[in-house]
């Protein structure tokens, strides 16, 4: 297009200024994308660490269960939820919970029994990979239990120990049975470490005389499905029951991520504004230098639109080159950080804030959100920044403009 060719030539009339502006926009874009990708990586990683372990992105409970954890508030049709999840290709694990007493020799401790479907857990969650000693539960009931590590410690339990588990069963009787410890988990967060005792759901049902009550179905798409969509899917499959998300379950973590998100916006804004103001300055200077030229073309009959297009055309090329170059560099650096990450282990091992666990190696995440959005935003704001100089140029009075110089 002719306008762009002319714009291109105009840009290189002041080579140094254009190059400096290009460099500024590029560097800002580079920093912006890399930092966004790193922060996204941090957040996605933290969320994934939290949700993939066992929490899930979305959870379904019977109405009121979360309030009092009553054993009798069980899901009405967990099968429908599991089927809906399966149809959408989302992992889902049904769980039953009960408090009880675990004892080994002279030691005893309160425990939260999880009646789980080991195959479903393995398919949807990572908990099974966090076994420090022994193994995870097998797919068939075997009167086996896997313990949170603090619980194991307080019971002085080892792999191979036989626990007595006592619960108040659904019929009021004192349910009790022996369970063999087959595995002890690694540290998985306070809730699991302190009192989780995982057993097969069939063993659970027998011990509790529970008739297969399911208290929770945890759904996990591993980030493949937007949270709201997943929530809606679960809600549709569980009418009248309570559907929550990890953000509800872990409000502190959710708030923290929201704060980070806002901070990132603010941070991004600073860089974008810096780049945009640099570009605006360049365009202003370029416009002032060419006042007479604008006057002449106005005299020749060029419309204000023509002049707006000329000036923004130049800004567009400048923005496009700047953000494009910055984006390419940012892509390269981010990709490197996606693969190799930043090793933070010398500063801190795996650490935990507000219920979120962070990996010792800080990896970036490349996504539309973390990469394309800041780039497009940068481009857009730079383009917007050129509108002011363009309007100044378009509003010049031709007579006065021509008589300048």
């Amino acid at each position: 297009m002719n306008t762009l060719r002319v714009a291109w030539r105009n840009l290189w009339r002041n080579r140094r200024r254009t190059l400096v502006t290009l460099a500024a926009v590029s560097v800002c874009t580079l920093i912006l994308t890399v930092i966004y990708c790193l922060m996204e990586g941090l957040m996605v990683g933290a969320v994934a660490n939290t949700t993939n372990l066992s929490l899930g992105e979305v959870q379904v409970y019977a109405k009121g269960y979360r309030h009092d954890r009553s054993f009798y508030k069980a899901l009405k049709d967990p099968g429908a939820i599991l089927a809906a999840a399966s149809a959408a290709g989302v992992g889902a694990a049904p769980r039953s919970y009960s408090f009880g007493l675990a004892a080994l020799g002279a030691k005893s401790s309160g425990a939260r029994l999880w009646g789980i479907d080991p195959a479903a857990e393995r398919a949807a969650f990572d908990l099974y990979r966090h076994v420090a000693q022994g193994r995870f539960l097998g797919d068939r009931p075997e009167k086996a239990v896997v313990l949170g590590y603090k619980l194991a410690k307080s019971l002085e339990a080892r792999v191979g120990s036989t626990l007595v588990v006592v619960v108040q069963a659904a019929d009021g009787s004192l349910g009790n049975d022996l369970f063999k410890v087959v595995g002890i988990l690694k540290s998985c967060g306070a809730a699991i470490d302190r009192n989780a005792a995982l057993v097969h759901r069939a063993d659970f049902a027998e011990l509790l005389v529970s008739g297969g009550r399911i208290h929770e179905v945890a759904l996990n798409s591993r980030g493949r499905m937007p949270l709201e969509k997943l929530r809606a899917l679960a809600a549709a499959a569980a009418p009248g029951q309570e559907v929550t998300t990890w953000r509800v379950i872990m409000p502190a973590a959710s708030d923290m991520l929201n704060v980070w998100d806002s901070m990132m916006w603010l941070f991004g804004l600073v860089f974008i504004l810096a780049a945009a103001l640099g570009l605006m300055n360049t365009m202003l200077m370029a416009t002032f230098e060419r006042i007479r030229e604008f006057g002449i073309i106005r005299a020749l009959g060029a419309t204000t639109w023509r002049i707006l297009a000329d000036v923004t055309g130049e800004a567009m090329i400048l923005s496009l080159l700047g953000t494009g170059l910055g984006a390419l560099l940012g892509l390269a650096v981010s990709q490197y950080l996606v693969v190799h990450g930043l090793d933070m282990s010398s500063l801190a091992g795996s650490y935990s804030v507000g219920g979120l666990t962070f990996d010792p190696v800080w990896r970036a995440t490349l996504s539309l959100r973390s990469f394309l959005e800041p780039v497009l935003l940068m481009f857009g704001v730079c383009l917007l920044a050129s509108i002011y100089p363009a309007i100044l140029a378009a509003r010049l009075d031709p007579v006065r403009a021509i008589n300048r110089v």
Partner: protein
Amino acid sequence: MQSKSKLAGALLGAALWLAAAAPAAGAAGLTPRQILDHVDDLFRGKSSQGLMTMTVVTKHWQRTLTMQWWSKGKDRSLVRILAPKKEAGTATLRVGNNVWNYLPKVKRVIKLPSSMMSGSWMGSHFTNDDLVKESRMADDYTFKITFQGVRDGREIIEITCRPKPDAAVVWGQVRVVVQAGDYLPLFMRYFDEDLHPARTMYFTNVGDLGGRRLPRTMKMVPQDKPGEYTLVTYQKMRFDLELADSVFSLRSLRD
């Protein structure tokens, strides 16, 4: 097992209280302290032994257990379930502040961790804490008579007890209502720390038990669970019999 409130204890509590002998009240014009001690001592003796049934009614299930118990002094007791068959042989031993359960199905004895002491005993509305309570009301609470006269057609005395600052009790207030004259308890109402009623234990069915005139039925009604209660009825009771210390051992728990 967990949130069933204070029910299990009642059973045990009942057992414990039964364990002590009490001087006959009789005398007119007891002080509040004497009244509280009288109530505390009603079921106490040097030792006791007996048979009782416990019916637990909850929203979700209802069941009746038949149990035998033995107690000696104020800090040792043993309760064994006789029926239903599924749980026959299940036993609870308490020595001081320690509580053990024997589970015949797995043939194991387990010791109750202190974190579970506020949990339900045997699914009832009594807590394990109720079982091990051995101190006297008059020691843990300050008290005064807050009503004396006729209420609901009966002449009663109402004593309101508030915990002493350093007392290890969970209640914000306990109100003890006894019948004027014989000082037999009618009911005791427990209030939480916000002074809302939490549960009430009713004493009824006064009659002869082991040579004493006692309320033979106790009913614990939790305030927050409408329709639920635990009913304990003493069938037989003997006081001040000879019991060897070995009765209250882990070995005998298993038998």
